[in-house]
């Protein structure tokens, strides 16, 4: 039967994608249902991109259980999937005696969680490592195993590798109803009227995981969006910092950070405010002020005039569970939660995925490793770009001779060629935001002022989507919805 699967994963953020990819190693029939027009379009795309060392999590929580093992898996994942990942290390900085005592607490929490190679370091060493940190710094907790990553590229690479290994991805499929058939199978209906059936459901629906759980009668938790505003600075500002710089935390948040990104530009944020509206993706004047006040205390040369863009992320914080992750079996047999995965969810995602696979296995789904599992992600065009960035012109010239699409620069702020745009489209990214996240076209200082129409042309040529139906991020977000030639605007 069509649309019948052994496991259906609801939600394709980093958690859903990690689980799907983990399952794709086995001979299991898996599908992912994603409500947005592209994967990672919810919480994941706005993640700060930090692979935490693990000293922030309290002993005994699921967060603490999964964060360090998750961290350890990234070297191999990066090797297989070729997403950008660098172990830069993180510094929690202290500016007075009280904060120095807080460092001690976190050092001990790190030891409890078995965070390796941590060190409490003094002022001189901090400034030697990070000369742009406020010279009034008194000391820091240093954890070299922390890393930085591009969160949506991580999600894209997991999804596309899972697909290569047989997982089916369904986009624009918002789940609106879940029932049980007589044979014990779940039946899922989506907004567009499609129907799916499966033996198991993994609820990785992020902000909406409480609503998905309600469809099967589970009401013991609620997700409250914890809003975080982030601000990205021009790459011109340069490498202000090499490592992730944390303040000493407050009770609700790890605090406002100064974050190096794998793409180069520095990011500052995020705020942490519990809100009610799951659709509140708006940055605010107050948020901007708050972020920069805090960031400037740690790195004084961070300036608002260097902002090139800003965005909001909504962390899916669980209520009714002390804010911890909600992972594992439920009162409904076959319905498995991977919910309430807020920070350090990105770091923990590979370990959570492995755990969920074990849970499904224990619940009775027999699975064998696939003999022909291909752990490698196929990518060509974006690798070639690095040649251009490293000024290996003669090598690049050779590639261009073979394929002219490498010589057509589409986005000149970030040097993205037509070859990369085409690769992303063929990978399944068919919105301007999806292509932007997959290739970086439009992320630079002109913020797509010049490349928008070029990308639209290529998208039209590749997919046949009419120009007026090309969207920013799915239906309802058309860029230029009214053709003038065909009668114009009424």
């Amino acid at each position, binding site marked *: 039967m069509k649309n019948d699967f052994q496991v259906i994963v609801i939600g394709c953020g980093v958690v859903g994608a990690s689980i799907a990819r983990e399952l794709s190693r086995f001979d299991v029939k898996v599908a992912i249902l994603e409500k947005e027009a592209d994967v990672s379009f919810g919480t994941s795309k706005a993640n700060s991109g930090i692979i935490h060392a693990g000293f922030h999590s309290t002993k005994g929580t699921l967060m603490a259980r999964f964060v360090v093992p998750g961290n350890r898996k990234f070297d191999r994942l990066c090797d297989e999937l070729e997403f950008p990942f660098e172990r830069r290390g993180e510094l929690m900085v202290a500016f007075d005696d009280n904060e120095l005592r807080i460092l001690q607490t976190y050092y001990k929490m790190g030891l409890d969680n078995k965070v390796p190679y941590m060190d409490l370091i003094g002022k001189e060493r901090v400034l030697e490592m990070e000369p742009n940190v406020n010279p009034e710094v008194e000391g820091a907790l240093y954890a070299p195993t922390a890393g930085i990553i591009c969160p949506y590229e991580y999600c894209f690479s997991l999804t596309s590798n899972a697909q290569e290994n047989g997982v089916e991805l369904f986009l624009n499929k918002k789940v609106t109803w879940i029932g049980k058939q007589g044979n014990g199978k779940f039946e899922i209906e989506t907004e567009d009227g499609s129907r799916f059936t499966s033996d198991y459901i993994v609820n990785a629906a992020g902000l909406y995981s409480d609503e998905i759980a309600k469809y099967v009668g589970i009401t013991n938790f609620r997700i409250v969006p914890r809003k975080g505003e982030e*601000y*990205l600075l021009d790459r*011109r500002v340069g490498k202000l910092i090499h490592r992730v710089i944390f303040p000493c935390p407050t009770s609700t948040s790890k605090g406002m950070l100064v974050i190096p990104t794998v793409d180069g530009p520095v990011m500052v944020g995020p705020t942490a405010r519990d809100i009610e509206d799951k*659709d509140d*993706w*708006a*940055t*605010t*004047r107050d*948020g*901007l002020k708050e972020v920069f006040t805090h960031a400037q205390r740690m790195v004084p040369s961070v300036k*608002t005039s260097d*902002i*090139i*863009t*800003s*965005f*909001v992320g909504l962390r899916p914080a669980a209520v009714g569970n002390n804010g911890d992750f909600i992972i594992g079996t439920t009162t409904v047999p076959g319905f498995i939660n991977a919910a309430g995965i807020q920070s350090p969810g990105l770091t923990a995602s590979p370990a959570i995925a492995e755990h969920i696979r074990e849970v499904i296995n224990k619940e009775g789904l027999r699975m064998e490793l696939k003999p022909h599992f291909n752990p490698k992600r196929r990518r060509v065009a974006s690798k070639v770009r690095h040649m*251009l960035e490293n*000024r290996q*012109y*003669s090598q*690049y*010239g050779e590639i*261009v*001779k073979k394929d*002219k699409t490498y*010589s*057509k*620069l589409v986005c*000149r*702020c970030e*040097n993205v060629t037509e070859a990369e745009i085409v690769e992303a489209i063929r990978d399944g990214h068919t919105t301007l935001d999806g292509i932007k996240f997959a290739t970086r076209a439009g992320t630079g*200082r*002109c*913020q*797509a*002022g*010049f490349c*928008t*129409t070029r990308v639209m042309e290529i998208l039209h040529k590749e997919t046949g989507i009419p*120009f007026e139906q090309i*969207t*920013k*991020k*799915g*239906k*309802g*977000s*058309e*860029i*230029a*919805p*009214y*053709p*003038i*030639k065909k009668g*114009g*605007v*009424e």
Partner: protein
Amino acid sequence: MTKNVDALIIGGGPAGLAAAISLKKNGIDNILIVEREDCLGGILLQCIHNGFGLHRFKEELTGPEYAEKYIEMLEGTTIETMTNTCAIEIVNEENSKTVYLMSEKSGLIEAKTKVVILAMGCRERNRGNIAIPGTRPAGVMTAGLAQKLVNRYGYMPGKEVVILGSGDIGLIMARRMTWEGAKVKAVVELQPYPGGLNRNIAQCLNDYNIPLYLSHTITAIRGNSRITEVDIAPINEYKEPKKEDTFTLKCDSLLLSVGLLPENELSQLAGVNLDRVTGGPLIDTNYMTNISGVFACGNVLHVHDLVDWVSEESEAAGKAAADYIRNQTIQKNKIAVRVGNLVRYALPTVLEPGKPGILSLRVIAPAENTTLYVKADDEIIYKKGHKKIFPSEMQRIEIKEVPQKAKMIHVYLE
């Protein structure tokens, strides 16, 4: 592939075209223009309104017509043009430069040249630069992108429009969108005076009863897929929005016309020093940057309001570049130009003693019944009264002869 030329011009818009023709007129034959788009003309191609060429050709042309005049001048000359070609790096060597080009047709090209003319133009400031609070829906774009979509592709980005910023492109688009049946609900300007030319306020807003809100700003953007509404608030003297007077307008698009920035990433990479005020390269009276043999003209140097002045400036730069190719002249005596009261900038920032000079400048804020002075030390060498003077209008003033012994030139308004 390699290439060898005397002059390589980066950008085939009005500045690049005028510089090339001037180089040719001044005896240089081996000239290459590289243009990243598929045809020459630059931003003029999407400016289908008229009003171009009044000074230069004494007739009223559209943007494409103005570009065509220059493109026609290329015909039959030895000037080579390469479209779909992007300059990716300029490397400065002792007696020449190497420019790496990426061309759709010919692949990667290493071009050696005696002279580089920077004519890359400018780009628009965008939402990120001004950090408007709110969501990030479709329908928010720069006025220039909207202009391209409407005029070159034939698609309207929306039907109910709000425009933030009163720069010329925004004003032109207010009229253009109205002509295509859209309702332009407001043009919102942070400053107490408009950012664009007065003639555009009259012809694009007043003629169509489009309200202009001066000293106002947008404090929120709403809508998740598509923009649905904006909050508009008057600002106080500290440029903070007055919450109590905020009002909301429904709209399906928000166009931004909040300023232009010379596009100098390539120049910076090559080591060209930039002026903090204009965002363009620091030049001498020969339009030469701190790198010998690298010249700059047009909007990459400073943002102009009239293309006619771009052409004139670029012709002068082309002539100077031709002289440089022949004689390798390097200007020795320079007199610094300083700006004073109410003058935002003046270009070039140095003048040559004993020679005539042209200064381009803008004032900081509108002023009435005022006089623009240029002094060489204590001697007045230029003086002109203005009933009204606006920041949106670039002033170009000619100095007949810069005094031989002057130590400093001072430009100010009184």
